[in-house]
């Protein structure tokens, strides 16, 4: 009997309480010490060959008969009133099938309750109109024929400047989201700072980081009878289904969303795209399939990014290193639309055992493209400031930076004083310090022009997963198995681990299992793939479904063999048992084969998380860098990434996640930044030529250390997520290593040559001043 429960759901650092309908669970967690047969093994990706050979069809590969191509007309101004728009010339161009603008689009509200094509453009790149045409070339030509009468308005790029009284207003009631900062306070921060022996403070700045998904955002939408089918490069199949259903006024069972593969999302594909909705509307208008994919420039300026931040941070401590207070005021540049700001204060609130913490997070609308979730949104930015200032505090106290962190380790969650379901933070410190040679870092060469240094930083994040999610395990009469669930593989290896979990629980070989995901048509709802939630959400539901199927198979075999079910086992596809004291052994396929076209259907759902515990993932990264003090080049030599995310389901997919996170974090620290021209408000580097991401030659040695200890208190797998944790500590660890190498504390990234050389020059000047006794 299904049960309605209320459960806490955490997505990208935001906690909410939601209902979930769940079944009475059949499974209990695997024993922590138990060696499993398939789960935890380095099983190669079940779809690896498909992906590598090009056989895999990504949404952008979809071509349908009669398909039209759609493009947006985008505002050239960062802020402008769209006074009048004349699409008549575009409409007359042969091959143009539909033009949509504010004059003829539905009034259904989009972001921030504004229409899909508004009469104000709020960033350079904002959508003003859409065209569907026979070819992409014609669509582009048509865009040039649309005449728009813009009234340019003053614009603002900096989030703090946007809060001034005389700043241009992006929305009538001001630029501050919700009209006030997100406030959090425990204890008395001012008092604690006044009583502290040491107070360190700093202003930290992080850049706008672009996801740069290799497959750009986009959809192909077509009508099949009374159903609309959406092929979408999305992390949220059911979210897209629901949004399209709402826009078209359809029942949810008349919208099918398909996403078998995708070329990256990193959080930017959690929402439904304006291109998806526009494609659906244009498909309805033209009666033709619509392909609506962004190009590389649009991907850069209008498909989301990690918001830039400015953080004013103060930390106070006792002489012995005990933290007394953390005080953070942060400003995030949300861009023009996104109606949420990521939890920049998260690390300050929960990483350390500190009684007095205050975080004021100002989320501010600015005239750039909308921000979106980006791999551990908020925590990447917040950890940057906190962990650099912790190192500075250690320096002031004359303490080892690692020792300072261990001293302030939080044994219970500082947010709610709950015990952790499990917490391997201290293990990750120990493991990482040993692997990098933390104790020997004084011996690194710092005499020549290329100077080595080692630094570290910590990680905390969610990853518990949450209901609801549903799964079905079908066993065909040849004993082949189909696993069906509505989740999506965003490139992390979801298909592979779901096959492993099924093989383990059901007792059938891995190669007999086929996993069907990424299609809302199956009807088995799964949550979005973000917040490091997928494995720990869908995995337990699949195990439940497999257990249900297994129970039925054993029962069925018992009836067929005329024995008691309790005497039978199913392993490796073979039923074994005892009948009249003689062992019996029969292949499952053989038994089922004799029963005709029967089918066994096991159902499972994700059970709620336990109450009374805090579920977090933990980790630490230790980095060795080399800084060339003549050329300003910062090279990352080695990264030791030590993470605790419960039971490791597959060390190969886990390593991939950790390596990818480290590289994205390294790019953030060293080279990535979206640059907006201050005078025109237009992005200067909306491409992969001038926006730098690491190349193969930039990749350092990455040592992955997985604590791999099942957490028995969370779900039937003992596993937590690992998608986001590995990007969180990388940048501050690199910056701390650079300090260790050259004695300069950077508070802004990326560490480009100009920033490093200018700082080295200032350092030299101040050294000379000190030596000669000149002040100032």
């Amino acid at each position: 009997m299904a049960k309605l429960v209320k459960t806490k759901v955490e997505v990208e650092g935001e906690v909410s309480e939601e209902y979930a309908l769940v079944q009475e669970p059949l499974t209990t967690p695997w024993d922590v010490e138990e060696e499993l047969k398939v789960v935890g093994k380095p099983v190669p990706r079940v779809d690896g060959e498909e992906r590598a050979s090009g056989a895999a069809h990504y949404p952008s590969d979809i071509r349908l008969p009669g398909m039209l191509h759609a493009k947006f007309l985008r505002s050239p101004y960062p802020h402008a009133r769209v006074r009048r728009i004349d699409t008549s010339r575009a409409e007359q161009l042969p091959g143009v099938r539909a033009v949509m603008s504010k004059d003829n689009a539905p009034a259904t509200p989009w972001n921030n309750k504004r229409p899909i094509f508004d009469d104000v453009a709020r960033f350079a790149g904002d959508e003003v109109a859409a065209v569907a045409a026979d070819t992409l070339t014609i669509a582009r030509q048509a865009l040039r024929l649309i005449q728009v009468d813009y009234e340019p308005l003053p614009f603002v790029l900096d989030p703090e400047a946007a809060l001034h009284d005389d700043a241009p207003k992006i929305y009538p009631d001001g630029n501050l989201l919700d009209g006030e900062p997100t406030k959090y306070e425990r204890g008395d921060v001012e008092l604690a700072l006044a009583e502290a022996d040491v107070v360190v403070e700093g202003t930290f700045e992080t850049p706008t980081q672009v996801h740069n998904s290799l497959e750009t955002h986009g959809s192909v939408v077509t009508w099949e009878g009374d159903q609309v089918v959406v092929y979408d490069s999305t992390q949220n199949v059911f979210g897209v289904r629901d949004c399209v259903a709402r826009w078209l006024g359809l029942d949810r069972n008349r919208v099918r969303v398909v996403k078998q593969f995708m070329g990256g999302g990193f959080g930017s594909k959690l929402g439904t795209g304006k291109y998806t909705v526009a494609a659906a509307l244009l498909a309805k208008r033209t009666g033709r399939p619509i392909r609506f994919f962004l190009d590389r420039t649009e991907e850069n300026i209008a498909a989301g990014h990690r918001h830039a931040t400015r953080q004013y941070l103060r930390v106070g401590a006792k002489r012995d290193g005990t933290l007394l207070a953390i005080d953070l005021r942060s400003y995030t540049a949300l861009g023009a639309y996104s109606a949420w700001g990521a939890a920049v204060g998260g690390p300050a609130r929960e990483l350390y055992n500190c009684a007095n913490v205050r975080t004021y997070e100002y989320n501010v609308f600015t005239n750039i493209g909308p921000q979106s979730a980006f791999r551990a949104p908020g925590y990447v930015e917040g950890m940057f400031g906190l962990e650099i200032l912790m190192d500075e505090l250690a320096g002031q106290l004359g303490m080892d930076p690692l020792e300072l962190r261990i001293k302030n380790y939080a044994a219970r969650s500082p947010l709610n004083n709950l015990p952790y379901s499990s917490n391997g933070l201290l293990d990750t410190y120990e493991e990482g310090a040993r692997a990098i040679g933390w104790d020997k870092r004084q011996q690194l060469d710092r005499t020549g022009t290329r100077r080595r240094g080692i630094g570290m930083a910590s990680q905390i994040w969610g990853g518990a997963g949450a209901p609801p999610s549903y799964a079905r395990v079908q066993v065909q009469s040849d004993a082949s198995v189909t696993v069906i669930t509505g989740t999506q593989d965003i490139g992390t290896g979801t298909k592979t681990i779901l096959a492993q979990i099924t093989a383990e629980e059901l007792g059938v070989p891995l190669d007999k299992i086929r996993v069907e995901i990424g299609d809302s048509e199956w009807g088995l709802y799964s949550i979005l793939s973000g917040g490091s939630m997928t494995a720990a959400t869908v995995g337990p539901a699949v195990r439940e479904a497999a257990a249900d199927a297994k129970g039925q198979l054993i029962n069925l075999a018992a009836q067929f063999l005329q024995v008691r079910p309790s005497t039978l086992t199913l392993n490796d596809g073979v039923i074994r048992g005892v009948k009249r004291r003689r062992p019996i052994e029969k292949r499952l396929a053989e038994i089922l084969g004799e029963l005709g076209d029967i089918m066994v259907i096991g159902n499972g759902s994700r059970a709620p998380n336990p109450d009374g515990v805090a579920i977090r993932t933990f980790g630490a990264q230790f980095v060795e860098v080399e800084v060339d003090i003549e050329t300003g080049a910062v090279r990352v030599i080695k990264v030791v990434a030590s993470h605790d995310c419960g039971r490791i389901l597959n060390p190969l997919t886990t390593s991939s996640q950790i390596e990818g996170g480290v590289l994205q974090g390294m790019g953030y620290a060293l080279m990535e930044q979206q640059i907006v021209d201050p005078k025109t408000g237009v992005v200067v580097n909306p491409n992969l030529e001038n926006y730098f991401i690491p190349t193969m030659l930039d990749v350092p040695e990455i040592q992955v250390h997985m604590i791999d200890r099942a957490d028995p208190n969370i779900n039937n797998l003992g596993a937590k997520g690992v998608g986001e944790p590995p990007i969180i500590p990388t940048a501050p660890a690199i910056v701390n290593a650079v300090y260790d190498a050259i004695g300069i504390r950077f508070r802004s990234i990326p560490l480009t040559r100009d920033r490093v050389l200018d700082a080295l020059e200032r350092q030299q000047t101040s050294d000379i001043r000190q030596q000669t006794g000149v002040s100032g």
Partner: protein
Amino acid sequence: MALDFTSPQTLDEAVRLWHAAPGSFWLAGGTDLVPEMKATLKQPQRLVNLKDIESLRGIAETEAGVRIGALATLTEIAESDLVRTRYHALAEACRAAASPQLRNVATLGGNLNQDSRCPYYRGAFPCWLKGGQVCFMREGENREASIIGYHECVHVHPSDPPNALVALDAKIITRMNGDTRATPAMDFFRAPLEGDRRMNLLEPGEVVTEIQLPRFPNSQSTYEKAMDRAFWTFALVSAAVRVDLEGDRVSAARIVLGGVAPVPWNAQEAEEGLKGQILSPESVALASATTLVGAQPLAHNGYKVQLARALVKRSLLNLAR
């Protein structure tokens, strides 16, 4: 708009075809022109493909030195034993450019005609270099801008091989209608000026046919490039350095910097101090310190002076080994 594509077999035929239709563009590797066409920055009506013209190929020794055909790819040059042993800086400069895939296609002739990579010029800005009124980079994002030798436009010459060609006293042979002319590499490039915004001396319809490198009796050269990441990006600053030795003393030196000016920048002050000197830490330090003394950096590119000096120092010390 229709695009006419022609593939002549001879240079004469190519020149004829170029002049026979308006809007003609030369096409060699296409690594620069084709993306510009996609971005509608260049809108040719006719492409005259040079790749079938056999006489434009090859790298060969001549009496005077070495001849490199304009169609030689950057990979061919980087891997040529002749170039690697005698003109190390050029081999290194070709190897430091772009990515392996691009180097396999990009030609030296095309590289000499490399268009500006200034993001404002390439992007959605009506900038001065493409006929507008304002240089957006000057007051905008100028971290990558020129620090010397600039006028209205502060972009830098983006390519690597030209710096080496200037350092190696190369001659650039071009064909204009029926005439052939040889231009020293040092004079080939130009800073765009009001009234004439070209980046080099090529006239409409003129085409690079070959590059000639002179014979040096006792010369060594090297190329250093500083980038925002390990590879596959244009230089922030680069240095092509050649020293000719008589005994253990420098008889002549050539120091050419990339990424600092709208042309490959010849750092003559630094060269002067090296003449007659042994390449010692002291003489190298002096040359390094006198590099770019007249630089006039903008708001965010002062670091280029220091970076250039570091590369000059490193190059000379490498050559001293």
